[in-house]
């Protein structure tokens, strides 16, 4: 709690009006609610996580009775056994918000370069050598899906390279909003590379609304034009197979990226390089430096390291048979 207070006062969380107000509300409500309603101060509560949760593990039969006892003390029945979730939630929220804040302030946040991005550059270069087009499919979802947003920011990068080398670019899309966003991003890239005349509205094209009609059209294009490089980024479903197979038959270099777990194996087996799951978001955060994406990603990284540490400590404690701590430590990770 002191950590939170320090952060608030030190001005790490600077009063950008709304964020600040809501931050205060959420943390305030949670912190206040626990002690007032359960007649239990939070510091005591976090300490007692161990005792209560430990009890639950050892005698699960008595769980209900012990909960009731706690509940009887307090008017609202605050559930002390869920303090571990409360702690994780508050920690998680603070970390994410602080990193987002830092990202918004333009603080230097390091993100490693994602390997797939180099491959994209190389593949586009190959298309230039061969004088054949680059095909970019930004997935089959509407713009409200994060995967599509990530795909559009990668499209911006690809368009800059094609603009630089005057390589033809083709971007078939399935939804009107993606069409608008895609055209904007591509045009912007061509302007930034100083080649506004080379930009052509038809580079980003609405193809068809229906899933398989869309796929059939894109496949037709691949067989006709034989693009040197196919880039599939975003949300793909059953059509992933069809697209990757046709591209393979057309002899194109293929790079894919999706977070759809059931399509990833097919892309990996059929494409030359694949951005898997979170890598897609990381690539887009790396390129766009969008504070929300970047802050979220950094915050999650921070929590991941804590979790890894927790796992390793846990393994150690359990393996070394430190009985006194073992049950207690494990009970911190029990969800009740």
């Amino acid at each position, binding site marked *: 709690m002191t950590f939170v207070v320090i952060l608030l006062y030190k001005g790490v969380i600077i009063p950008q009006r709304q964020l600040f107000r809501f931050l205060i509300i959420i943390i305030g409500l949670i912190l206040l609610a626990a002690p007032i309603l359960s007649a239990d101060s939070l510091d005591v509560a976090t300490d007692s996580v161990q005792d209560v949760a430990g009890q639950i593990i050892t005698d699960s039969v008595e769980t209900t009775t012990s909960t009731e006892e706690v509940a009887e003390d307090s008017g609202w029945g605050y559930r002390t056994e*869920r303090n*571990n*979730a409360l702690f*994780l*939630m508050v920690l*998680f929220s603070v970390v994410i918000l602080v990193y987002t804040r830092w990202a918004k302030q333009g603080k230097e946040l*390091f*993100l*490693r370069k*994602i390997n797939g991005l180099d491959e994209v550059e190389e593949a586009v270069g190959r298309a230039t050598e061969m004088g054949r087009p680059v095909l970019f499919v930004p997935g089959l979802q509407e713009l409200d899906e994060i995967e599509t947003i990530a795909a559009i920011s990668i499209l911006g990068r690809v368009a800059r390279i094609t603009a630089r080398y005057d390589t033809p670019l083709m971007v078939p899309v399935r939804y009107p909003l993606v069409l608008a966003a895609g055209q904007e991003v591509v045009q912007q890239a061509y302007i930034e590379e100083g080649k506004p005349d080379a930009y052509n509205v038809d580079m980003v094209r609405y193809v068809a609304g*229906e899933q*398989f009609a869309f796929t*059939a059209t894109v496949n037709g294009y691949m067989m006709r034009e034989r693009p040197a490089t196919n880039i599939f980024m975003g949300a793909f479903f059953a059509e992933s197979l069809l697209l990757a197979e046709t591209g393979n038959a057309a002899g194109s270099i293929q790079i894919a990226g999706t977070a759809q*777990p*059931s399509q*990833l*194996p*097919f892309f*990996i*087996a059929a494409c030359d390089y694949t951005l*898997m*799951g*979170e*890598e897609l978001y*990381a690539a887009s955060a*790396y390129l766009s430096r969008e504070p929300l994406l970047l802050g979220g*990603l*950094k915050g999650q*990284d*921070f929590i*991941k*390291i804590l*979790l*890894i540490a*927790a*796992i*390793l400590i*846990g*393994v150690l*404690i*359990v*393996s*070394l*048979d430190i009985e006194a701590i073992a049950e207690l*430590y*494990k009970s*911190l*990770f*029990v*969800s009740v």
Partner: protein
Amino acid sequence: MSWVEIVQIWLVAFVTLSLFSFLYKDNPFYRLVEHIFAGLSAGYYVGLIYHSVILQTMIDPMFRNGEWWLIFPGILGALMFSRFSKNYGWISRISLAFVMGNTAGIFLLSELHGKVLPQVGATMRSLNPQHQADGWTGVLLSLLIVVGVVSTLIYFYFSKEHKGVLGGVAKVGIWFIMISFGAHFGYTVMARISLLIGRVQFLIFDFGNSIKELFG
């Protein structure tokens, strides 16, 4: 088999074969069935929502039990349709925000409390052969699991370059991930084949029997 049943089976068979005909090449039958499909699916929602949501959850309790306040979610729901207006489209955001906020509230805790905590807890496995019923084989499994979870988390860690120890762990991570995706691949193949088997069973048993019935 009554003639009604036979007609039904033939209808299903017609639909099935029309769709399969796409494998040979695109054709009007496929197109026709595809558009009927789109329409029926949309129409299904109308009947479902009308009965299960509007009648059963809203109107009936309002009149039967006098729960008049259910008119409010009804209004909120109806406001969704303001989206089709250019000037009042923003009103629909209120209803959307109500649903999205609620889901977010549930998710924030259920993801941390129901997934992260227990999954992390379950990874704390003993590497001590005395704790394992099957001795070192049990340790091997535990080791695989601990290394697998940690290296996967490291592979998807973006705040440091993958060099040195971190790079080594990430490399192990990618091998593990590939084996897991291989398993996923195998299972997905199984899933797709199963669905085809389902249709083939229909065509051979049901449709086949109806043909037998008709032509002796």
